[in-house]
């Protein structure tokens, strides 16, 4: 079956070659990372036989597991709050017209555009000032707030894209069929934008889990997330322990993606 859309001859060969190059470029480092996390040699890049001891070290290193637990807590809190706020912002921008809408729209996307370092400095200054007034210490709350601040933008972009593709007559139809505003949202709008919300949540969680720059600026003494801690370890010298940590994070994020795809497939939402 050959048609005009099917590549032939040289085109076909070179397309295939380039595809493989791209796959290698993407996945070879991951493969190397995984292989060397099982290497029984302190030097990364030198194979010293198979071992799982780096994973055992990771599990026993209380600083590492503490940082991992911090990362997860922050990611969960930041994701939950930014998904709710980001979705609300998207709904407001897509469904209602109000005074200052364009300004709000532009401000909402600022964190996506401005460099991380700028954002980090801004937040640091803000928290330093705020600490004087309200007297809180830097650490969990400041990191969580910072992550929420930039995650909202990404969530609302993803949710808005989904909302824009939805026929707004559907909500009218629901209300015509005796649904209150809340019920119209719950049974019609929400199920239809759920893929967007899950996508946004996934993005927020990923961004929160691997943020280094902003977290490093706004964190307090003795308080660290996993990426920030790993970054500080690298300065002392790289061991396959870092590989093991990275593999764990990689597996965790793949599980997240798989879960989000699965929930979208299983979801059969019917009213009440």
């Amino acid at each position, binding site marked *: 079956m050959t048609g005009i859309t099917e590549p032939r001859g040289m085109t076909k060969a070179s397309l295939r070659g380039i595809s493989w190059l791209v796959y290698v470029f993407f996945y070879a480092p991951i493969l190397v990372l995984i292989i060397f996390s099982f290497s029984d040699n302190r030097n990364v890049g030198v194979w010293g036989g198979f071992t799982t001891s780096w994973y055992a070290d990771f599990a026993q290193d209380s600083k590492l597991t503490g940082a991992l637990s911090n990362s997860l807590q922050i990611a969960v809190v930041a994701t939950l709050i930014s998904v709710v706020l980001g979705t609300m912002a998207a709904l407001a921008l897509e469904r209602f017209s109000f005074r200052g809408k364009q300004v709000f729209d532009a401000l909402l996307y600022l964190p996506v555009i401005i460099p991380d370092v700028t954002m980090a400095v801004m937040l640091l200054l803000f928290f330093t000032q705020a600490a004087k007034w309200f007297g809180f210490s830097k650490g969990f709350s400041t990191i969580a707030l910072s992550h929420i601040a930039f995650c909202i933008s990404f969530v609302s972009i993803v949710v808005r894209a989904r909302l824009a593709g939805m026929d707004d007559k559907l909500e*009218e139809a629901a209300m*015509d069929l005796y649904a209150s*505003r809340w019920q119209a949202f719950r049974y019609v709008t929400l199920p239809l934008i759920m893929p967007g919300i899950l996508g946004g949540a996934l993005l927020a969680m990923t961004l929160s889990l691997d943020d280094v720059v902003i977290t490093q600026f706004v964190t307090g003494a003795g308080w660290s997330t996993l990426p920030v801690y790993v970054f500080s370890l690298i300065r002392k010298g790289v061991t396959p322990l870092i590989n093991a940590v990275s593999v764990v994070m990689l597996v965790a994020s793949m599980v997240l993606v798989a879960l989000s795809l699965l929930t979208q497939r299983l979801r059969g939402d019917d009213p009440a």
Partner: protein
Amino acid sequence: MGETRDAHETTTAADAVAISGVTKRFGDVVAVDNIDLNIADGEFFAMLGPSGCGKTTTLRMIAGLEFPTQGSLKIFGDEVGTLPPNKRPVNTVFQNYALFPHMNVLDNVSFGLRMQNVGRSEAADRARALIKLVQLEGMERRKPSQLSGGQQQRVALARALVNKPKVLLLDEPLGALDLKLRQEMQNELKSLQRELGVSFVFVTHDQEEALTMSDRIAVMEDGRLLQVGSAEDLYERPANRFVADFIGQTNLVDATVADSDTIVLGNGSKVRATTSLGSGSKVAMSLRPEAISIGPRGSAPADHSEESLDGIVSSSTYLGHAVDYRVSVDWIDLEVRAGAIGAQQRFSPGDEVSLWWDRAANWVVAD
């Protein structure tokens, strides 16, 4: 135009919908301009007009999807002006149907009942009965995307009717269907309405659809209500030039009123016609193509001497059931439609002919 509005002018408690003095503005734009309209219980009522005339806005105000800027809107005697749609005893069949894409047919149809806290099994039973009524048995588990346009249309109908609305609103419900299916659905809608005895308020821009389906029709233009009446009223006694032109085909001849019995056409010829407008008023004479008789020059009957014009055939088109002539009469062209079967004579371009009509066939409208 007051004279052609009919007897439904006065509000009674039995009116399904009573609109009085309703205006709707969107910013500076007046979408609906001070209209009065009464729709009787059990009536098949059409709102007809070109796009942007305010017919859909009026329908949406009855549904509660828009609120009037001004005026009163009653459904069976109850003022519903700013009541939200979920508090009104009306349901809507939306243009393009607005079926919930994530629900199957059964869930779509039972949605309204579930929102009114009808139990799950009772809602499903009542929904199944309606699905049967619209002949979609066996499709309960399908998603809207797996249905054809006609089937989606039926789901939309069932979804609205399952709630036993006191008034069913339909916004261009047949617009997305192809011609054959549209004619089928016209008949089905009409018989469904008769069976249920519920008022249907139907918005369309298709005048033929409005004429064939409705008990009464409201013609709108630029947010104003131009005329309300039966198909015959609108066709034979249009209230003004716009209605005469919009409903069916007609020849509109500019004229001036001479006295209550005579009008003067553009070329100075006098024609007998009844009008209540004062002498000197600018009017138009509406002559339907099929109401004009055609014959050889000088053949106009003597008793029609003051309802006739002479002209030259400029084109003739054979339509099967009729022949369409364009006849040049001095300063204008007139369209004449003559029966093809059993016609004594056929005319060719260049033939000199006389045209005449019955006095009752011409209708004078204000300009």
